[in-house]
């Protein structure tokens, strides 16, 4: 990693992306020894591990650009809820396998065009992270899509469950395409990916998958938001308590 260039906007952007990956990884890890079949334990742990790797790279880069000497663990383990910048969609509880796969589809369909765009980021370190992430997220999307199709076009029960899961998480997708001052500046600098360009690609992927899955695209007027400003759902507090407790119990210890 290139050191010494303090850049607050880039640090913020990396925290947003890093927190997305970290929180989602943490949620997927909850499926360990709980999946519907062993092959899914392997697959989901694979995805969780990929996301954790992305998170580590992004948090390290964020700490670097922030210039306060914070490490990946300082950022993951010592920040409060209001300092986490993930989108709310990734912190939602897993629910059943249908809801988990619905959320995976929606997030991966956003992450793929995002990382593809970031391979041309003017920040070389971010572009480097993107190069690796693209290949991983292609797999994540394919995996999620395969399951959403099979559950949607499977049995009556699976159709009902995945539709319910989709309905539950859908309102949280709007936050993924919001913009603000930080993002606008970074888009102008060529560092960040423009959400306005990503949304139509996301929508096309999702519409195509849901059609094949015989699922209905949800419609809602509810637009929960706030994650990018540190405003989260109640779920995040519990997730962080579990994730951070041991580290915080031994201040300064090495592991």
């Amino acid at each position: 990693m290139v050191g010494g260039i303090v850049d607050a906007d880039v640090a913020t952007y990396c925290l947003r992306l890093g927190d997305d990956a970290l929180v989602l990884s943490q949620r997927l890890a909850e499926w360990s020894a709980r999946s519907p079949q062993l092959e899914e334990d392997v697959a989901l742990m694979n995805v969780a591990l990929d996301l954790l790797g992305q998170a580590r790279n992004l948090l390290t880069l964020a700490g670097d650009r922030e210039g306060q000497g914070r490490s990946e663990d300082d950022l993951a383990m010592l920040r409060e809820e209001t300092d986490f910048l993930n989108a709310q969609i990734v912190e939602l509880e897993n629910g059943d396998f249908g809801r988990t796969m619905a959320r995976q589809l929606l997030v991966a369909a956003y992450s793929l065009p995002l990382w593809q765009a970031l391979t041309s980021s003017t920040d070389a370190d971010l572009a480097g992270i993107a190069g690796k992430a693209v290949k991983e997220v292609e797999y994540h999307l394919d995996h999620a899509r395969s399951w959403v199709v099979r559950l949607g076009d499977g049995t009556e029960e699976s159709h009902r469950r995945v539709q319910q899961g989709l309905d539950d998480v859908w309102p949280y997708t709007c936050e993924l395409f919001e913009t603000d001052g930080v993002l606008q500046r970074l888009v102008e600098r060529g560092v960040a990916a423009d959400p306005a360009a990503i949304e139509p690609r996301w929508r096309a992927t999702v519409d195509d998958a849901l059609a094949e899955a015989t699922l209905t695209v949800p419609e809602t007027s509810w637009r929960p938001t706030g994650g990018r400003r540190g405003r989260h759902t109640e779920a995040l507090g519990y997730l962080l308590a579990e994730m951070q407790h041991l580290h915080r119990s031994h201040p300064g210890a090495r592991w």
Partner: protein
Amino acid sequence: MSEFRAEGGHGAVPTSGVPADGGGRAGSQPLWEVFVRSRRGLSHTHVGSLHAPDAHMALRNARDLYTRRQEGVSIWVVRASDVVASSPDEKDAFFDPAGDKPYRHPTFYEVPEGVKNL
């Protein structure tokens, strides 16, 4: 007293009074045989089998299980019921074991000086 032995990996399991077969339900997902050609390999080699509902998932599962998604690897999956095997007499050509790769000890972990048997 029934017999226990350090069978298998993590040891101490009962070995007498334990049935080998006869569980209730038969397989709900077909069995697939998996063949992999590594990046520098010349041909596909049989690496094992897995269960999956269809070919698409079989390929995905094979990638996760047998290749850890390495780049440039080619995978074939074949429904086990579609494999036609030769008789035991002609077995050598078909059932030669897959090339045993030497065990590489990862250097990712620091093994302190003077500690043996790791």
